[in-house]
């Protein structure tokens, strides 16, 4: 067989074989529909993604549907596949993806868009939706980037907006029913699908533009097509489908551990944060459900580490009840607990003692900005005292390493705010020596890690321009010049990839041409530093005749029609405007638990602890 010969020539062939323990096996000849769940990045990254695990499980709960996994082959494997004319295949049956009924592609980050196109190409599927007849699978996109997937609009048949556990099975059921009744055609199916909440069919809308290049309107082509597509949510997280076992990779992946989701949404409302808006309203799982799910997965996987996922774990209302429940059995079974996404203001000694990962490695907090003024403007609502107290707790608990995350280039930022970043680094170093319980004879290591601000759709800063490359570079160099203390380490994220991310994040349909050009230039794996090429991106924009700055570096008007206005995430544009205006006055907004800010997400319904009834 061709594949077996190829696999001997590539690195880590275990990425391409499937056959892992926990993989779902069904009789493909008895299926009413087959779904290829594609993750446009490597096996190691995709297999660590909880969303994929949940949807693989949820779709496979349908007895007559088989969902299989597909990942991006790495360049060495891709070259072999092209050379030997082996089309992209799914891991469970090794069947070509083009034979499936659906190809579902998860869009986790903008820089994976080139991989999306290369996957289609490898699958021998025409890139443009308009070039595909009935013989090809329905191409459906989902995940966080689907909230504004306009740059991919020309390549996809439909986008699933919001949470997919219930929506995707509904979509597949509609397809099967239409096929069975003989009423199916791709066109009829997509039209019908557009009537179901959470499905956006880009080809059913006519987009017009103003002479200045901004969007004029999104007009449905038919009266029955909704003018706004509302996202889907799971109303009751305790009843949401969650895997009872995981597929167990043979090769090492990014996270080989149990990942358990504790709640969705966030009470905080940081003004740069997209996740904090699109996953609203906040919905918690109860501690009993979390505990029994973790236990069940532990018994079925044998993993010895549990990671509790959420946007801010210390905001979980019943965290101590949950950790108590977990600790009744995890310690005895030698299972470690780890809690990512800790907030400095709610970090406690008690919490630190409970999480074993803290005992092993350093701690990370995210002040995001260097001065109280800017932290108010971005609505971070963390004080310097709280950050220092949290670091001090860590030092007292035997830590010597602390990492602080910042964002540079935030709206309203001045050089005073950048001075504040280095000042905070020094303050944390001093905090170490002030602590009588610190590890004696050691020096602290404080890492200041700076990302670049990227304006994202559905945030209060969605209208803001990203700083130019020059301005960001200058700020980075300025901060680097300010830090001379050896105990303070400074690292920063590349400005160039941040610019591409900004352009794609706020892009409209016209960027499909850029992505097409990018594919022609052979670009892929742009999220990987070793593969990213800014020069090639510049070339792709130039070839398509599109100005990158229009999307990345332009302040959009508050009254402008935005490409993503077609999507309703629950949180209203009015609320975001209010937040935008408050940010210009450096005014913060209380979190949901303190006082409802009227974001509008309560209109979505659901079991939500703080939202007033709509």
């Amino acid at each position, binding site marked *: 067989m061709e594949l077996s010969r190829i696999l001997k020539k590539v690195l880590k*062939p275990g990425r391409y074989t*499937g*056959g892992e*323990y926990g993989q779902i096996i069904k009789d493909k000849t008895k299926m009413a529909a087959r779904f290829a769940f594609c993750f446009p990045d490597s096996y190691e990254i995709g297999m660590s993604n909880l969303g994929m695990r949940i949807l693989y499980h949820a779709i496979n709960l349908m007895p007559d549907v088989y969902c299989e996994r597909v990942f991006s082959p790495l360049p060495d494997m891709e070259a072999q596949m092209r050379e030997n004319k082996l089309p992209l295949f799914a891991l469970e049956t090794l069947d070509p993806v083009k034979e499936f009924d659906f190809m579902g592609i998860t869009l986790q980050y903008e820089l994976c868009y080139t991989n999306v196109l290369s996957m289609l190409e490898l699958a021998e599927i025409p890139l443009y939706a308009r070039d595909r007849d009935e013989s090809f699978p329905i191409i459906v996109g989902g995940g966080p980037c689907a909230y504004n997937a306009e740059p991919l609009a020309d390549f996809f048949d439909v986008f699933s907006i919001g949470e997919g556990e219930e929506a995707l099975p509904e979509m597949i059921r509609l397809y099967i029913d239409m096929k069975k009744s003989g009423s199916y055609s791709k066109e009829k199916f997509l039209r019908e699908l557009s009537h179901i909440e959470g499905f956006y069919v880009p080809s059913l809308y006519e987009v017009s533009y103003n002479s200045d290049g901004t969007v004029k309107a999104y007009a449905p082509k038919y009266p029955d097509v909704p003018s706004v597509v509302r996202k889907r949510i799971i109303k009751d997280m305790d009843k949401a489908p969650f895997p009872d076992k995981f597929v*167990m*990779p*043979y*090769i090492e992946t990014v996270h080989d551990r149990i990942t358990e989701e504790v709640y969705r949404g966030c009470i905080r409302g940081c003004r740069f944060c997209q996740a904090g808006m699109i996953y609203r309203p906040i919905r918690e799982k109860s501690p009993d459900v979390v505990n029994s799910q973790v236990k069940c997965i532990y018994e079925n996987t044998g993993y*010895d580490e549990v990671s509790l996922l959420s946007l801010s774990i210390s905001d979980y209302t019943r965290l101590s009840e949950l950790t108590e429940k977990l600790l009744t059995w995890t310690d005895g079974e030698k299972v470690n607990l780890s809690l990512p996404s800790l907030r400095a203001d709610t970090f406690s000694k008690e919490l630190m003692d409970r999480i074993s990962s803290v005992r092993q490695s350093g701690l990370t907090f995210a002040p995001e900005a260097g001065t109280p003024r800017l932290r108010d403007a971005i609505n971070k609502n963390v004080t310097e005292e709280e950050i220092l107290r949290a670091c001090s707790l860590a030092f007292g608990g035997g830590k010597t390493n602390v990492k602080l995350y910042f964002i540079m280039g935030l709206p309203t930022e001045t050089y005073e705010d950048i001075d504040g970043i280095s000042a905070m680094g020094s303050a944390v170093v001093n905090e170490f020596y002030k602590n009588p319980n610190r590890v004696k004879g050691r020096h602290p290591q404080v890492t200041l890690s700076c990302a670049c601000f990227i304006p994202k759709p559905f945030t209060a800063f969605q209208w803001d321009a990203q700083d130019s490359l020059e301005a960001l570079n200058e700020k980075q160099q300025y901060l680097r010049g300010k830090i001379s203390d050896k105990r303070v380490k400074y690292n920063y994220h590349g400005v160039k990839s941040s610019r591409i991310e900004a352009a794609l994040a706020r892009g409209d349909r016209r960027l499909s041409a850029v992505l097409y050009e990018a594919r022609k230039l052979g670009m892929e794996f742009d999220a990987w530093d070793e593969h990213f090429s800014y020069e090639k991106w510049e070339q792709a924009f130039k070839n398509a005749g599109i100005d990158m700055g229009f999307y990345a570096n332009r302040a959009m008007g508050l009254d402008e029609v935005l490409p993503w206005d077609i999507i309703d995430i629950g949180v209203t544009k009015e609320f975001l405007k209010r937040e935008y205006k408050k940010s210009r006055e450096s005014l913060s907004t209380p979190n949901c638990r303190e006082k409802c800010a009227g974001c509008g997400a309560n209109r979505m319904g659901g079991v939500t602890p703080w939202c007033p009834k709509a």
Partner: protein
Amino acid sequence: MVPESIRIMFQKTGRLRYISHLDLCRTMQPAMIRARIPLWYTEGFNPHPKMVFAQPLPLFVTSKCEFLDIKIVEDVSCEEIKRRLREAFTDELYVTDVYKPTDKFTEIAYAEYEISGIAVTAQDVKGLLSGSIEVKKRTKSGAEKVIDIRPQVRSVTLRPDGVIECVLSASGSEYLNPDIFAKALAASVGIEEPDCDITRIKWYKADGNVFK
């Protein structure tokens, strides 16, 4: 209970040929946990379960006969361990036997392999075995040197179905990778990159008895 040694005999077949020995070791610990095998943990600073493989299996080689020794601290019958492990593995990692070992891994002297996919005649085999078998080997310093592997080849038989059975040295210092032998065999009939399947069949002790 005093930790008791248990030997697990298993097959590694199919897609698992692409999984390296290191990756297999890494996935064995969670598999033992989900199989609820009462493993004995080392008592050091970083306790870990004691698991010892007879020998690593080279990448792309399958096996009908691999050995893994563990130590258990609760009384569970070998039959029960076998049942639980079969559940905790896929069919491509199939447990054939579980028992209390008597032979020691250090007694292993030879391993038998089946090689298919290289077209040779009985005459070719005879020719290969009649003199030295020289292969190039890269030393640790990176330099290439030519060595004779003939002394590590105990027997080679060509079956009527075209499959080559060979017995190669497998004791620590004398170990011969079957892939090197297969390449040498293919090279002797003018094949550069053989696309062959290799399967480990069984093991022998120095006295010629089957290792168990």
